[in-house]
């Protein structure tokens, strides 16, 4: 599968939800879509899922525009934090209604997931707790087995235990039936190990789109004597500074060469890797 965004722009009046977004996603990978509230994550996903059209630019999926394109639309599943307030059907009835429209839907797998998340088969979905409703969205997303699956923070309502079950199941399902997942999230620290690639949206624009490992390798925290650290990082992009007494820790963004690493050791500085969470938080700070 291939998704290409070309000069994608979405406005609401004078406000830009997306501003000239360009990227290309390829392969059966898990993409982490990160961004602060209002960064444009849901807007981007809703355009990919044909829920709306962009104001300017286009999305191309496998060489075709998806909007009102039956062939593409049936291959894209978009699950978001749905409330199911009026859903009087039980989980089985709901899934049976969806199954005929999704060519790869597996009811057998859905049944397995219902047991995994301990959902009551007979209870109306509107009576489910928030966590159970999140599990319903996850089950639809996984069991539909669409070549492109977009999960927009559907796991937020789950408790930590069920989120762990979901992460494990996602990786196992990806191994069994590889496809393109795009997961948008705020829970960066607990989900980072899932991502093959990372996209960070900031105020409607793509700030970062990189392979997870190469992105992570660009972040480091240099700790040591304040003056020595300042001297060492003066030509680097500094995204966070912490100081305690004479000890300073500066988080930098940008790869260190082997010579620079050797120099840091010679100067008695400590180099520690930055986590995706740290990079995300500090790169998307208001003052960056």
């Amino acid at each position, binding site marked *: 599968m291939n998704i290409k965004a070309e000069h994608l722009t979405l406005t609401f009046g004078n406000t830009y939800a997306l501003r000239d977004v360009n990227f290309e996603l390829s392969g059966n990978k898990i993409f982490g879509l990160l961004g602060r509230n209002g960064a444009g994550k849901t807007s981007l996903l809703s355009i990919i899922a044909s829920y709306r059209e962009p104001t300017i630019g286009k999305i191309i999926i496998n060489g075709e525009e998806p909007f*009102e*394109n*039956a062939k593409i639309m*049936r291959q894209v599943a978009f699950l*978001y934090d749905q409330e199911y307030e009026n859903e009087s059907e039980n989980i089985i009835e709901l899934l049976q209604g969806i199954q*005929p429209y999704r060519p790869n839907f597996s009811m057998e797998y859905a049944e397995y997931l219902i047991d995994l998340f301990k959902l009551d088969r007979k209870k109306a979905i509107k009576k489910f707790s928030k966590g159970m409703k999140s599990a319903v969205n996850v089950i639809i997303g996984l069991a539909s087995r669409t070549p492109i699956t977009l999960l927009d923070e559907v796991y937020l309502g789950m408790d930590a235990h069920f989120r762990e079950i979901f992460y494990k199941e996602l990786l196992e399902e990806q191994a069994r039936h590889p496809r393109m997942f795009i997961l948008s999230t705020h829970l960066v620290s607990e989900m980072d190990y899932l991502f093959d690639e990372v996209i960070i949206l900031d105020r409607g624009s793509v700030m970062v789109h990189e392979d997870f490992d190469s992105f992570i390798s660009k972040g480091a925290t240099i700790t040591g004597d304040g003056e020595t650290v300042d001297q060492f990082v003066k030509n680097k992009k500094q995204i966070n500074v912490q100081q305690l007494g004479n000890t300073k820790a500066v988080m930098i963004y940008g790869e260190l060469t082997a010579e620079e690493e050797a120099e840091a050791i010679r100067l008695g500085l400590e180099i520690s890797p930055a986590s995706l969470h740290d990079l995300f938080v500090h790169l998307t700070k208001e003052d960056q």
Partner: protein
Amino acid sequence: MNDRQISLKVAKDVFLIKIIWTLAFLGIVLIVNIAKVGYAYFQGNETEGFFNTSFVASNFFMFIIGLLAIEFLPYFVGIGVTRKDYFIGTSIQTFGLALGIAIITSFIFLVEKFILKLIDLPYKTQNINELDLDGNILGDTIQMIILSPYVDPHENLMLATFILFTNVLILYVLGWMISSAFYRHGTVYGLVSVLIAIIIKMLKDNLLRVALDLPTIGWLKDIPDMPAPVAFILIYVIIILIFYAIRLNTKRVTVKL
């Protein structure tokens, strides 16, 4: 499934949900009617009959479930169905539903007629077509919205069934048109669509009055005289135009999360 199969599947799925609502609604109308027949029998009065009760109540019912038709759009787009297939499927089931109401009502009428004949209970003479318009704009408008031209099923059951079908069909699509206008364009255009729907309803009623050789009434009473088939064709042209307006409202609409 190919595109055609998808729209037929949408039609079937929506129809199966709404026909259950419809049967429940007609069941309630039937229970009310049985109670009224029983009361009339023991009081020694005449009874109105099921057809009449259903004729008035079905208009309301179809208008309300027409208003709810837009609620199915987010569900279908969410499972990968295009707006076009949603529109085609919902349109097909609309005809099925209107036909279902008309046929079920007429069938129950025939059974009721047989039973009332057995127990020798007479039907009340109907005066639905004689509106009491007194120049009070609000009162006159409400009467014209609620009541549609009526054909007595005792005189011509086929025509009465067809008129019922036409009435409930147009009420459903007017409801769908209004809700799609609110969904697509917001409150102001939504309210404008309500006004347009009232005018369309009055125009349709007066065309029916012309076709049924009844005097025209209300705001649009000056429509020219024309042969009945022409009036019926015009009514169905109006229905097609309403479908077209719904399609325009939903063709590229943003699905709200």
